[in-house]
């Protein structure tokens, strides 16, 4: 079987596990980050722990800006991959 079909099936199965989780297991879950859940465990193990450094990087003001920056990250990566693959494909054809 072509690898593309197998990968397609894997992606469909991945979507299915999400839809199952969302509609059957818990329709109210927001699928928040696993790192947030880890923060709760830290608070449970050591309730007195305070993060000792606040961070000097830019903090997105809200979910909208954050999703913009994540989308930008994906877009930059995809652009490089698409450009390079297209360039080589064209070059291979000419030769």
């Amino acid at each position, binding site marked *: 079987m072509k690898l593309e079909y*197998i990968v397609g099936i894997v992606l469909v199965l991945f979507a299915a596990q999400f839809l199952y989780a969302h509609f059957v297991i818990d329709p109210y879950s927001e699928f928040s980050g*696993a790192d947030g859940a880890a923060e709760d465990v830290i608070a449970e193990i050591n309730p007195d722990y305070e993060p000792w450094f606040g961070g*000097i990087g830019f*903090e997105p003001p809200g979910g909208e800006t954050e999703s913009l920056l994540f989308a930008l990250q994906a877009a930059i990566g995809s652009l490089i991959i698409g450009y390079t693959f297209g360039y080589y494909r064209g070059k291979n054809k000419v030769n």
Partner: protein
Amino acid sequence: MHIFEGFLPTPWWQIWFAVSIPVIMYGMYQMNKLVSQRREVVPLLAVAGAFIFVLSSLKLPSAVTMSSSHPTGTGMAAILFGPAITSVLGVIVLLYQSLFLAHGGLTTLGANTAAMAIIGPVVAYVFYRSASKAGMNFYLNVFLATALADLATYVVTSVQLALAFPSEVGGVYASFTKFALIFAVTQIPLAVVEGALTALIMKYVVQIKSEVLVDLNVLSSAAVTKIKEAME
């Protein structure tokens, strides 16, 4: 999902920097050497870095724990260029995310680099090379190596947190179980997707740039011929 800023106390954040910095320096040295000796690999290096950029930006939902996490994307670079060069590509992505996205952090950069950009890639590299010698099918090998590297990354993150936050009862091991239940278990469906996507992109690399794969000792020329025959 990386360890948040300020969430590793002394001495752990320093220890993980001490682990990561020498590897990154060695990786930079290796990368410089590779780029000056073989200019033709530069675009492939860019693609491997870009692949980490894309995959680590995708926050995917996982039914296992009803939470979201992201793939690492480091398996491809590890298989192509080895773990040292991959650590340099990985630290660039981790820096971007900690500086602009408040995701991860500068004080935890050493620990996050060790997990995502060093130990995960070492797992991918060692698995790929051994299974390749044993004659495993190329795509299956890439799939398994990458999926295992993804899981290993989050097992390491769990170990790092457990060492820094041992439970009063049960110590490091009890904490590890708690963190691993969150990180590593969430990651299982994501690791499968990451493995599949990496196998696919490696197929296209074989299609367009197989001679570089032979140069980098990723595949023998006999293996390339076999894979290309199967494509037609």
